[in-house]
């Protein structure tokens, strides 16, 4: 090949400050970005995959610095530029988009002004032209009603629209390199699919080189031309996407790909004994004049011993349903029956006595454990509140820890001493401590890396079999639902639009909405 790479990273080592868990964020990494091609940098959290992107932009966090190697942009060494030189480069030569569209825009500035600012920063165009060009960019990235959107504030746009705005800013000066740091991780599957398509389109139209940082092999299979896999700061494998995805050389790559949840169809007999019946459940949320129907006459049965998946996009009402079942939300009308009794309006002692029968595992393993409580207290608090003697509760807590694969010594430690996956195990142990019949898992594995996700899913499956649990699994991830569930309920705008066995939903979806979700799910493969 005689074309020059647009961006070339040569033997780059990025040093971490003293006292970090390893000396280098990345070590001796070499990568090339070619015009019109997308390089996906894949790795788990903490692998250092984002550091390479930040190093290129000169946006490394305080205390982190380039230790060795160099970065060439169009042949020019940009490893150690001055702040003024970096300002010149950013946005103009290399642009970047980020993971969190909800927070990536200044909440107090109008959208159009935030885009126009890019021209101002680089002294391009007259002030009046800047606004016109911003409007044009909004149109190009497919914002609905751009004439109005340019005067909107970020909070008036959805997550997907905000990400489009960030992309518009990045494109403003036609940079030769676009760095995307997990730009779709926080988005719904359908929005994610749209954004991925948009990036692909823009890349072809403008001939940019794209560096796409992600943890998701599904996304990789959709967008990558080349793939680089990073494990704990070391580049373990790189090559064309086809090759890396189909025939990975390195065991770590193989492990990561194997950990992607695959849809499993089970041949178990359908379970027919309803443990929990939800009938005509209605719950509305009001903000000012806006009314959101989070549950719009939801009716479904949860059978004893099954795993029922509730899938849908954000705002579909899937979490509200889960919360209503654990009695964290009081429905406006409708009933939730267990053993023939309506449990949705229990109060006081009756509610407290009932609570132990249904327990919940939460999404965020960081926020759902009290940071000032030792694990022992977290695991025994519930049983003690329900009248267990302390000694017995502690003995049970130790058993539970070994059940979820942790050491009994964890009892004396605090949540911050554990990794995300370990904390989710603690969350599971906490839910089990009350010996519930039903566990509601609300996006319980969504915040975890794929390899950890696979372990936690296996653990849940194993516990369910051993303890005879019934599981309600709320998730936006169809792959996860397809792996762990027996039946799936698809929710849209507060209603259950489709309910059936995994095989029926994945192979022969009845609703167009279900089909669009399946189409959008990155890297989802179902054997026909």
């Amino acid at each position, binding site marked *: 090949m005689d074309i020059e790479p647009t961006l070339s990273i040569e033997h780059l080592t990025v040093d971490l400050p003293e006292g970090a868990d390893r000396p280098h964020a990345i070590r001796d990494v070499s990568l090339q970005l070619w015009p019109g091609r997308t390089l996906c940098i894949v790795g788990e959290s903490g692998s250092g995959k984002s550091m390479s992107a930040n190093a290129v932009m000169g946006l490394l966090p305080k205390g982190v610095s380039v230790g060795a190697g160099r970065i060439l942009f169009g042949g020019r060494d940009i490893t150690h530029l001055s702040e003024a030189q970096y300002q*010149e480069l950013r946005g103009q030569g290399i*642009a970047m988009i*980020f993971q969190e569209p909800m927070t990536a825009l200044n909440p*107090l*500035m109008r959208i159009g002004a935030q885009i126009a*600012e890019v021209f101002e*920063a680089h002294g391009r165009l007259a002030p009046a032209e800047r606004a016109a060009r911003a409007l044009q960019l909004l149109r190009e990235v497919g914002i609905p009603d751009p004439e109005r959107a340019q005067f909107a*504030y970020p909070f008036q746009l959805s997550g997907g629209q905000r990400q489009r705005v960030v992309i518009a*800013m990045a494109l403003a000066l036609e940079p030769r390199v676009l760095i995307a740091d997990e730009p779709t991780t926080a988005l719904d599957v359908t929005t994610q699919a749209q954004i991925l398509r948009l990036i692909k389109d823009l890349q072809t139209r403008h001939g940019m080189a794209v560096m796409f940082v992600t943890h998701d092999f599904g996304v990789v299979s959709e967008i990558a031309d080349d793939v680089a896999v990073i494990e704990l700061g070391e580049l373990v494998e790189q090559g064309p996407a086809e090759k890396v995805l189909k025939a990975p050389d390195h065991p770590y790559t193989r492990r990561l790909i194997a950990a992607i949840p695959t849809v499993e169809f089970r041949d178990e007999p359908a379970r027919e004994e309803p443990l929990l019946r939800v009938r005509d459940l209605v719950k509305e949320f009001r903000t*000012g004049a806006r009314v959101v129907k989070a549950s719009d006459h939801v009716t479904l049965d949860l059978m004893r011993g099954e795993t029922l998946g509730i899938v849908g996009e954000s705002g579909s009402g899937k979490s509200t349903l889960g919360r209503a079942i654990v009695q964290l939300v009081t429905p406006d009308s409708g009933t939730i029956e267990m053993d023939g009794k309506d449990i949705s309006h229990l109060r006081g002692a009756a509610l407290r006595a009932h609570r132990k029968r249904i327990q919940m595992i939460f999404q965020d393993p960081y926020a759902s454990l009290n940071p000032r409580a030792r694990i022992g207290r977290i695991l025994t608090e519930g049983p003690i509140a329900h009248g267990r003697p302390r000694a017995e509760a502690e003995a049970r807590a130790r058993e539970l820890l070994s059940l979820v694969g942790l050491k009994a010594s964890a009892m004396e430690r605090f949540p911050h001493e554990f990794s995300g996956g370990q904390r989710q195990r603690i969350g599971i142990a906490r839910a089990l401590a009350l010996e519930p019949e039903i566990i509601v898992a609300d996006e319980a594995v969504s915040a975890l890396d794929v390899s950890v996700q696979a372990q936690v899913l296996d653990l849940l499956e194993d516990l369910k079999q051993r303890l005879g649990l019934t599981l309600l699994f709320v998730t936006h991830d169809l792959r996860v639902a397809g792996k762990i569930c027996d039946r799936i309920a698809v929710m849209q705008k507060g209603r259950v639009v489709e309910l059936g066995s995994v095989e029926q939903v994945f192979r022969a979806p009845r609703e167009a909405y279900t089909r669009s979700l399946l189409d959008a799910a990155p890297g989802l493969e179902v054997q026909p």
Partner: protein
Amino acid sequence: MRGTTFMKIATRIAARLAKAAVVLLAILVLNFLLIHAAPGDPAVVMAGEAGATDDVFLAQLREKFGLDQPLYMQLGKYVWDVLHLDLGFSYRQQMPVFDLLMDRLPATLLLTGSAFAVSLILGVAAGVLAASRVGKWSDTLISTVALLFYATPLFWAALMGVLLFSVVLGWLPPFGYETVGSGFTGIRRALDIAQHLALPALSLGLFFMAVYSRMTRASMLEVAQLDFVKTARAKGLSRAVIERRHILRNALLPIVTLAGLQAGQLVGGAVLTETVFAWPGIGRLMFEALTQRDYNVLLGVFFVSAAMVIVFNLITDLIYGIVDPRIRAQ
């Protein structure tokens, strides 16, 4: 669209004003009852000053002031009068309370207003400077001085200010509103008042200046960590623009809350300063009225102070709506 937004704002203000009226009425009643719960009444104080202790004289005084009526009658009459904007008559000063307050109000507003402006401007400026030089010596200096101001009692700072600038250096007058009997007019008089104003305004503003600077610094540093600041850097904006347009604007939101609190004290918050500097304002009027059990004057001051707090609360909320579009939309 614009029209409906305006209507929405107008309706909201009207609703707030209605609520404010209720609150004000409650304050009125509460003030009245509290004052009457305190031992002693104007008649006792006046009789004491006159050297008379006989009960007939006291009874006469009480009858004259209406103090012999049952409490609920007095309260009813008082509320009725206030509703008609009649704050009563001060028998001590032989003047209607309203005129008395209007007479003193300009001096107080001049003092508290200057203190407010000085503390807000200097405090925020110092905070911005400290935040942009975080960890450097200028940051340490600003933070230390702010802490010192923050910890110093107001009257102590005032006394030390007098000692240094008036007694030792002789630059500024130690007390009063203007040079008595100087006959200055126009610019010369304004200058004279400004000289008298400097020390009390500064000592009154020091505490809030320190609070503003600490808060601005902390708020700026917090906002600087947010994602959109990184977006701004990735656009290639210069540091100065990022600090001014992105960080400072967002960091000022909590400052507005605090400024609203301080502004609420514009009338009632300078009692100590006015007393120390013999400043002829509302604060000193209140202090004198208190020692003399001049009920009508005291109630008048309380009423105006409370009304001020309510008005500035409303203004603060409106300003919030202007600076933060998210609040406007609610």
